[in-house]
């Protein structure tokens, strides 16, 4: 295991949910202050060093230029800062696990920089950091990720459970999370986590996280693994109370469904990059919400596990290694992410939110999902419909706290 995975396992053994921010700032001093504040929060925390968008797309010149001009960046440019600078950011934090979060279809320079700084945990995946994060062909991303994994000896989390942030039905999120973890393992990574992002309905989400655990136990029995839940990754409530309620609900979901770690969002999410204080508050609130609930071993069965299993098996039956199989699967549309604009995504699948607030398929394209799972009643086609679907969770939480109903 790794320092990062050890810390999560230790917390889990004590029945504590690990909470983690998504935090990154360009300035080394601010980055260090942020990590120290997260370590000091009244919660079981691990730290995050989120990389800026120039570094993500490999434009290190633009990152350097921004540093030089004092322009603000949306994260920490880990490749452009000197390794000594990053070591100084982390100085004295050796017992405190820190994960590097990036969003890069070519993570090789980032993996090298984090290893050089003495860090052992990061995340992403050849599909989840290409289709919604890059223009690069999926084939290139698979190649870069294979190489990066082969050189890597730490803990790696898949971002597959978060495709597009919103409106992707849970079975596909679960399948992609499992498939990317299988890809990591094939390329020698021995400690992984599988992600799932909170969606539009708590019962459906709990079912999905149970399905994720079942498939991880089946396909990843020979590596160390845990599950990480992300607080809602779509359009966030605009009011502080609405944002807090949604974040707290994510913490309760994580505990009830047996996840070991949670990545939080702040009251600033809908508006701008959060401050350190807003991140600390989000961590402490989430920890408090988590401590008020406990694991529930049963959940509804509306077919998420069956759908996810069918998707994973269909991909693994294709010839070649997991990367080759993923490429073929996207080429044939056996995997097809709704609303994804990337040219290597088939683009025939569509989804919507039904009357009960559950995410449903409007069409599944060529994916091996039974027709009975398709609900043709709610296809969203106009800009107004799309915006309403994207804002549904935000509106609900803003409205609910407005009425003072804090459950």
């Amino acid at each position, binding site marked *: 295991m790794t320092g990062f995975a050890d810390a999560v396992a230790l917390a889990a053994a004590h029945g504590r949910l690990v909470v983690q921010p998504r935090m990154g700032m360009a300035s080394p001093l601010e980055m260090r202050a942020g990590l120290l504040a997260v370590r000091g929060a009244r919660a079981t925390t691990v730290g995050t060093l989120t990389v800026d*968008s*120039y570094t*993500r*797309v490999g*434009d290190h010149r*633009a990152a350097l230029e*921004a540093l030089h001009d004092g*322009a*603000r*960046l*949306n994260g920490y440019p880990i490749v452009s800062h000197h390794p000594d600078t990053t070591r100084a950011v982390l100085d004295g934090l050796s017992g405190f696990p820190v994960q590097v979060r990036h*969003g890069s279809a070519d993570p090789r320079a980032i993996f090298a920089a984090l290893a050089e700084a003495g860090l052992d945990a990061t995340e992403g995946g050849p599909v989840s950091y290409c289709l*919604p*994060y*890059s*223009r690069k062909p999926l084939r290139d991303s698979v190649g870069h990720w294979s190489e990066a994994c082969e050189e890597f000896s730490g803990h790696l989390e898949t971002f597959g459970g978060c495709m*597009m*942030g*919103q409106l992707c039905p849970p079975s596909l999120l679960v399948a992609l999370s499992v498939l990317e973890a299988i890809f990591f393992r094939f390329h020698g990574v021995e400690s992984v986590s599988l992600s799932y992002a909170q969606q539009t309905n708590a019962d459906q989400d709990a079912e999905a996280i149970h399905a994720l655990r079942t498939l991880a136990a089946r396909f990843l029995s020979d590596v160390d693994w845990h599950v990480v839940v992300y607080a809602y990754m779509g359009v966030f409530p605009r009011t502080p109370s609405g944002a807090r309620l949604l974040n707290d609900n994510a913490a309760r979901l994580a505990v009830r469904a047996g996840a070991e770690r949670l990545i939080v969002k702040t009251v600033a999410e809908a*508006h*701008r*990059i959060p401050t350190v204080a807003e991140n600390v508050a989000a961590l402490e609130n989430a920890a408090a919400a988590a401590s008020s609930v406990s694991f529930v071993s049963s959940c509804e069965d509306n077919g998420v596990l069956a759908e996810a299993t069918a998707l994973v098996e269909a991909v693994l039956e294709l010839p070649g290694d997991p990367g080759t199989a993923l490429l073929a699967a996207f080429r044939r549309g056996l995997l097809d992410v709704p*609303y*994804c*604009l*990337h040219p290597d995504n088939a683009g025939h699948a569509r989804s919507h939110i039904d009357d009960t607030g559950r995410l449903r398929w409007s069409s599944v394209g060529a994916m091996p999902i039974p027709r009975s799972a398709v609900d043709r009643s709610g296809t969203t*086609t*106009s*800009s107004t419909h*799309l*915006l309403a679907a*994207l804002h549904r969770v935000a509106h609900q939480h803003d409205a609910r706290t407005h009425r003072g109903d804090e459950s």
Partner: protein
Amino acid sequence: MNNLVLLSGTASDSHTWNLVYLQLLLEEEGYRVVNLGACVPPVLLADECEAEQPDLVVLSTVNGHGYQDGPRALAEVRGRPGLAAVPVVIGGKLGTGGPEPAQADALRAAGFTEVFDDDTAITRFREFIAAFVLASTADSVS
């Protein structure tokens, strides 16, 4: 006027729901839309502008690098033959700290036809489009 809008993300920005939404909105207003998607480098944007000769270029970015990425994209487009005057607008969440009127003015001064960076963005954009159609019909009549 062939009613063509070229819609694009900026070089460092991978967000696409903004682009999916704006494409639908523009199509509902009667435009043809070429949507270049996310992470569009300035050279690709300018190449596509040269090839498509759009009536309007719409840049959308929400990742907080708009004040840096916007001017670089615009400079490349303006430098190409025949594109010195094509209207180019930008909108979204341009900085990392909420709307900044002074920075928006700097974008206008750099040559953006209009900047839509706050809660009134979509309302003002609809007005802009309506006025834009009127102006170009007037042009073609005279």
